[in-house]
């Protein structure tokens, strides 16, 4: 650890110059990987972030760092026979998770497909905001599938993205170097990159944040769906589940046999996207009727 500190000191002094043109403070620059932080480090990081956000957005944030709940493994179900493709989940997700409005970042993409086809290449991503459902079409919302065998985690060169004990794949935005290898590896196109400084109107900020989830991000890092870690670790449903007007979205603890998701798997025929890639998504699509 001492050697580490020493080398870090050396690196840091070299970096101060480089940083002057950059948006990072020296504390932030030297901050450790989240999983290697001590209690004090975490407290320091929390205070620094809260202060930084107050300066930037003029409000007090509630920054959580809750660890995974014991005996919990999240899974998600999406009822394709109910989904109408209204994109309410997308906007709820953007609101809840402080996604950049300009440039636009959306973690959920709703694809519209012709009845009878499951060819993603034939899907419409940019269908108009008309009345839905549209006859002759069905829709599939796609977001991070929280794979059990995540290719994105495997390829990350710095371990900046990993799988938590409750199954959520998270990103440490302060550790990601922005190489975008995970984006190339993701078969579900679930990761987004902050090409520019993200911008969110102050009155649309959600101040209830989690370190590994919806805290405001910086330029040059990758982000993704975290099953609303800031909500789910407090026992709440993700925002997309609550927003869905037709109740197509199911969420719960798969280790609990009484949970909705366990019941979905027990009583419905489910499938997982691109099962042939053996990514083992924790995201199940099913048809209730």
């Amino acid at each position: 650890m001492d050697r580490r500190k020493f080398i870090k000191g050396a690196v840091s002094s070299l970096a101060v110059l480089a940083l002057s043109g950059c948006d990072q403070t020296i504390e932030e620059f030297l901050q450790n990987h989240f999983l290697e932080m001590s209690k004090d480090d975490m407290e320091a990081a929390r205070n620094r972030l809260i202060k930084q956000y107050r300066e930037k957005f003029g409000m007090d944030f509630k920054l959580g760092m809750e660890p995974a709940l014991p005996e919990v493994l999240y899974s998600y179900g999406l009822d394709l026979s109910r989904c109408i493709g209204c994109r309410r989940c997308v906007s709820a997700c953007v609101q809840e998770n402080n996604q950049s409005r300009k440039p636009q970042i959306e973690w959920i993409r709703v694809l519209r497909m012709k009845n009878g086809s499951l060819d993603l290449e034939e899907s419409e991503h940019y269908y108009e905001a008309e009345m839905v459902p549209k006859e002759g079409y069905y829709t599939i919302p796609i977001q991070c599938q929280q794979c059990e065998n995540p290719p994105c985690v495997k390829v990350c060169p710095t371990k900046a993205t990993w799988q938590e004990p409750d199954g959520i794949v998270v990103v440490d935005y302060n550790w990601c170097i922005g190489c975008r290898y995970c984006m190339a590896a993701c078969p579900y196109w679930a990761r987004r990159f902050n090409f520019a400084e993200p911008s969110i109107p102050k009155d649309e900020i959600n101040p209830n944040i989690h370190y590994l989830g919806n805290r405001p991000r910086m330029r040059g890092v990758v982000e993704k769906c975290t099953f609303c870690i800031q909500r789910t670790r407090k026992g709440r449903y993700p925002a997309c589940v609550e927003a869905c007007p037709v109740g197509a979205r199911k969420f719960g603890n798969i280790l609990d046999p009484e949970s909705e998701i366990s019941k979905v798997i027990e009583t419905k025929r489910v499938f997982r996207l691109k099962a042939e890639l053996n990514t083992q998504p924790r995201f199940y699509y099913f048809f209730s009727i």
Partner: protein
Amino acid sequence: MKSTWGVIATSTAEKEGAMIRYPSTIMGVFLLLVLCIAPKGMAETAGNDKPDKQGAEAAQEYSVPPPLVYQSLYPCQACHRRDTRGVSSQLEKESGFLGKYIRKPDPQPRILIKMHRNINLNHAEWMWCLNCHDTDERNYLRLITGEKISFEKSYRLCGQCHGSIFRDWKIGIHGRRVGNWKGKKLYLLCSHCHDPHSPQFRKLPAEDPPRSPNYGRWGVIEHEQE
């Protein structure tokens, strides 16, 4: 989604016109049967607000928010008074001028032309009011067995026909979920989302499509696509 309930004006008196829209003979017979049984079942429970009949289903409690009807027309018996059946009419006692309008409920299926005209009945073809609403005690709904149930338990009524969906609803698969995945499940009644008189969802306007990948990017002139 707030349901598509029409706002129904509360009125002081009622009077219904006659005519049924879907005069299906079989269903007519069926309805008559139901109506014949009704007084018996009613007699059993009349006059008390005892909980529903025992049984696994009835005993099972699902915590639901108050039915939407509680915010609008309820209590139904403000108008549909039991005493209009001649037990002891408050109105008659007061011998108000409305007394002459008071009639016994007419069990004949028909289109309502005076009251509840904003209810667009678009459920199954053969359905009409008294398939679900109790004839004599309008604060209650009525199962096919004749059992009276409160509006809080309306899922049992819906579940009579929609059995597989009822099964899904009970285990949390059917229906919108809000609140906590952990701890006690919060249920919504069928009627919180579906208008029971016209249960099919209406179309919704979709929200805006994603912007072009260049939206908000440096030095790119965004051509608005309309």
